[in-house]
């Protein structure tokens, strides 16, 4: 491990000397910490829900958050785009740094949410046409040009692997689609904002197995362009699609490591008990 690091540093220095290595690395971005969470505590009124959570989430990887119900994984996910702000009684201490900016000291929540998109547990398309749903976010950013919107809508729907299924019915109500299709349009809606990070809160728990598979394939493709953080109850899902996995228990991160390690050689007994199905 140490040797590898040394070699990596050497490589970096060498590349730096040739003058393009760093910029290439930055462009590709993989492996850099995109989100840095330091000592995060969250309280619902008097009740503490997150205890000193610290973890770094890598750029252009899929990071899975697993753990039993009520362990705080969804709460944690929602701190990343400040959705917990909607609840009056929530108090937060600690730092979350995304793109070198502390999102809780910066007051521009709107900008944060354009950079950190979210897909929810149940498909929550608005009662309007498919087109209007996908164009909703860009329109909110002041984009009115029809051609530009058309392009964004098509790209986003293609990006969510649903274009071919809906291209002939863009102007019909989005609520007429099946649950699985709706969820992929939700993903398209998030992509349309061209965010850096996409948060997913159990995106397949309301879907049938075939739709789940499609969404999983989609997530695997999407990590080329986005940093993805996904909460899931389904451990096979975490194992299939994620690069790193964090195991939450009672508001604490018990273990955070490469997904392979979490599922094959967990360091903590509690992680092992959970991933082998002994509780939870």
């Amino acid at each position, binding site marked *: 491990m140490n040797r590898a690091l040394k070699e990596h540093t050497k490589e970096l220095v060498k590349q730096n000397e040739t003058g393009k290595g760093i910029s290439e690395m930055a462009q590709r971005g993989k492996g850099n910490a995109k989100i840095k969470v330091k000592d995060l505590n969250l309280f619902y009124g008097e009740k503490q829900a997150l205890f000193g959570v610290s973890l770094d989430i890598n750029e252009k990887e899929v990071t899975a958050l697993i753990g039993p119900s009520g362990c705080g994984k969804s709460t944690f996910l929602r701190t990343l785009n400040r959705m917990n702000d909607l609840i009056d009684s929530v108090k937060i201490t600690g730092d979350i740094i995304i793109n070198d900016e502390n999102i809780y000291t910066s007051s521009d929540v*709107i900008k944060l949410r354009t950079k950190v998109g979210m897909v*929810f547990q149940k498909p929550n398309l608005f009662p309007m046409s498919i087109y209007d749903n996908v164009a909703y976010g860009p329109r*909110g950013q002041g984009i009115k040009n029809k051609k530009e919107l058309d392009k964004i809508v098509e790209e986003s729907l293609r990006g969510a692997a649903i274009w071919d299924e809906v291209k002939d019915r863009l102007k019909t109500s989005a609520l007429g689609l099946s649950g699985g299709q709706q969820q992929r349009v939700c993903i398209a809606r998030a992509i349309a904002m061209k965010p850096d990070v996409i948060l997913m809160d159990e995106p397949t728990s309301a879907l049938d197995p075939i739709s789940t598979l499609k969404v999983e394939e989609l997530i695997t493709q999407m990590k080329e362009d986005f940093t993805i953080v996904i909460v899931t109850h389904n451990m096979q899902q975490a194992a299939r699609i994620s690069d790193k996995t964090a195991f939450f228990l009672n508001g604490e991160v018990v273990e955070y490591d490469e997904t392979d390690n979490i599922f094959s050689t967990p360091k903590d007994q509690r992680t092992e008990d959970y991933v082998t199905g002994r509780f939870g």
Partner: protein
Amino acid sequence: MSIPTENKQTENIGKANKRKYFLESVSSKLFMICALLSVITLVLIIGFVFYKGSHPFVVGGYSFIDFLFGTDWVPSEDKFGIFPMIIASIYATIGALIIGVPIGLFTAIFLAEIASTRVAKIISPAIQLLAGIPSVLYGVFGLAIIVPFLQNTFGLAKGQSLIAVILVLAIMMLPTIVTVAETAIRAVPQSYREGSLALGVSHIGTIFRVIVPAAKSGIMTAVVLGLGRAIGETMAVILVAGNSLIVPTSLTDSIRPLTTNIALEMGYAAGTHQEMLFATGIVLFSFILILNFVLAKISAKGGN
């Protein structure tokens, strides 16, 4: 081992249970009679109004067209034209909508979306209480505050006017609009709110781009109910309308809406005059009926 027949089963029912079944059937019939009572009352009122109101046209040889579009209402000279009153009613109602709907809708949005629970808990009951104030008190308020205010501000000879009616009706329709619209807005799923906010849209943007459109049918219902309240209001209107029999051409004209016409003259009218007042009632009732029809359409659409 024979299967007991229906009859045998009935025989098997004990005495105590028989009494229970008897009470059961009696009380269900009692409830049905109570329910029918309101339907019967409705039929009786409609039948009576239509019977009396149609009499002059069917038997008396008066023209219904002249009645609707005639501009003179002079019962002593046998002239019965209610056109000015129809126009007055329509103007007053539309005017009240123009003022009352935005205020009511914004209040509803404020209560459902913006106000903290504590503030909403103070304002909501206050608005509901507004609905409970007897309409004559609105009239008195209008007469004592709004009418003199208009008189002084615009230098009118008489403050009782179309605009006074509009203001009083706008206040009176507020509780209906606010309560119904607030309920509709609160019924919009939280997931829409979260979905919109998560796309970097501001709170106000979310309200106008997702929440209000999603609550559209409920808000329309609120508007139509408020409209019904305005068009049928009588007591408060009498006090501030001024009761002049002219087709209003300005906001400061004194007016006499349909309801006021009936209330003012029914006390002493007789014969054809009285029947013509019932006919006025038919026109008023038709307005309400159309509104209810529209309302049913809206709810049916919302249901889809």
